[in-house]
């Protein structure tokens, strides 16, 4: 198992595979299928200060090799997450990364301050990139100065390291990443969903009630790989990579691009056992690549050291 263990700020992971925020709820459903202690970590659903109902339905639409969602950050609110969901997760030996969201800076600060006190929360993930809410969310994630200021504010109150989740809906992702690093972020998570839309031929209208939604799934993987490749060369904080991961090979590709851990989102809906499957399959692929430890693979696509063994699936 040590082949897969990873140390990141705040996170002592037995393996680098974790479900991505919003694609795993607070773990209750998946706990009926397998032991959540097998996971490297769990990135739980975004939490806002007050409960949120989210957007009208339909909230999901399919695309070739992907899906659009416009859930709108539905969640039970800070008190319930702190008093019920996180304590329930304490029965599992797995660190929690709390995904926090809000409409104002004060919202983020309030949620960060409290959730970072939960005993099983080992890191925060600042969701400044949700494309499905009108205020907050993506507004913070597309403006480098706002992103930096927010990161700084949250860092001041958080008792655990802070990871910032970047939006791909920008022209210069490196710019935002560096601003966030300047703001004191301990790590980055990327990418969130890409803003997209689908129209129903029968009605001539958008399928989603919210009209637009966030694109995720295998079709976004090349975008995620490109962005992680660019950002990882220009920052010195670690990146948890996500966007279209479906297999252990995909996880390796994210590492080669520059990630230090990986999160699986949409694929949990397609195959609810995908995270433990990937964890089981990783050691063989790492061995085939001739590496002694998964962390050796981080950034190998741009680091100028010797080539890896030729990979045969």
């Amino acid at each position, binding site marked *: 198992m040590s082949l897969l263990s990873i140390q990141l700020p705040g996170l002592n992971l037995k393996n680098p595979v974790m479900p991505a925020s*919003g*694609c*795993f*709820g607070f773990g*209750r*459903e*998946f706990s*009926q*299928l397998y032991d959540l202690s097998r996971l490297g970590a769990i990135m739980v*659903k975004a939490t806002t200060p007050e*409960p*949120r*109902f*989210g957007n009208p*339905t*339909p*909230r*999901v*639409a*399919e695309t*070739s*090799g*992907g*899906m659009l*969602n416009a*859930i709108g950050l*539905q969640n*039970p*609110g800070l008190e319930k997450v702190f008093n019920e969901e996180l304590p329930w997760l304490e029965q599992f030996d797995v660190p929690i990364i709390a995904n926090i969201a809000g409409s104002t800076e004060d919202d983020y600060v309030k949620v960060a301050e409290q959730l970072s006190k939960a005993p099983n929360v080992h890191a925060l993930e600042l969701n400044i990139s949700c494309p499905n809410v009108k205020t907050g969310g993506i507004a913070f994630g597309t403006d480098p100065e706002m992103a930096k200021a927010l990161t700084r504010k949250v860092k001041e109150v958080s008792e655990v390291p802070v990871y910032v989740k970047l939006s791909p809906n920008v022209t210069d992702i490196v710019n935002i990443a560096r601003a966030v690093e300047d703001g004191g972020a301990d790590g980055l998570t990327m990418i969130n969903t890409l803003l997209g839309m689908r129209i129903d031929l029968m009605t001539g209208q958008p399928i989603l009630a919210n009209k637009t939604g966030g694109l995720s*799934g*295998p079709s976004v993987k090349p975008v995620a790989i490109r962005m992680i490749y660019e950002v990882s060369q220009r920052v010195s904080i670690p990146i948890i990579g996500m966007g279209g991961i*479906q297999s252990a090979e995909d996880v390796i590709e994210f590492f080669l691009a520059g990630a230090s851990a990986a999160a699986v989102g*949409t694929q*949990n*809906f*397609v*195959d*609810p*056992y995908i995270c433990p499957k990937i964890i089981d399959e990783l050691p063989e692929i790492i061995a085939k690549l001739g590496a002694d430890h998964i962390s050796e693979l981080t950034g190998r696509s741009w680091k100028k050291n010797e080539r890896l063994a030729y990979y045969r699936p």
Partner: protein
Amino acid sequence: MRQENCRIVSNRQIADNIFELVLDGDLSAEMTQAGQFVHVKVADGFDPLLRRPISIASINDGSFTIIYRRQGKGTSLLADKSTGITVDVLGPLGNGFPVDEAKPGQTAVLVGGGVGVPPMYELAKQLARKGVNVVSIIGFQSFSAVFYEKELAELGEVYVATVDGSYGRKGFVTDILDGLAVQADIVFACGPTPMLRAIENGNYAPKTYLSLEERMGCGIGACFACVCHTQDDPKGFSYKKVCSDGPVFQAGEVVI
């Protein structure tokens, strides 16, 4: 709830664009309630990506039956599958119809619209088995789309409505409900949302249970895609998930 690669025993067309698929699998042993559904992965690759929710139409010994309408990409791929190959099924999911709410000797009226008919068949079997008087009202667009009239007739009285009048009574299932001679003790319904709304507003029985449809992501309650408001808090934060709290709700419970 479990994932299993179930073998296709048969996959045949039973009406215009309607297919009946029988799957072999240990999963059937876990299926108990009529109205539960399975989440089917129709293709190995990633197009289409998501699973398709389909109701369980019949629970047999070691196998189960689903009935689906060939509608878009996913169900078309399913229709093309032949006997012997396996299909990736997650299930059984959700909470079905509360059969216990109908007492022996009482009259249960089952209303199915289009592909809302399939779960009614397993429900009719379970109710008839316990001595409940079953009356089925099934509605379709036209004669070519009618299915399972004979199967339901073996379990009780059946009335058919077609929108174009090509078979049975012309009109909607509610037109038949309005003129029904017997008094229902309980109504169970599955079908398009306008139909469910009309049944809820019609107050046809002291107790009414409705099976809802919503676009789903996970099908197990994790993604918040299929959430609806509750009627006692229509604009607030109370909610139910169609996939895991439903798909069956008592009339008056959620906003439809």
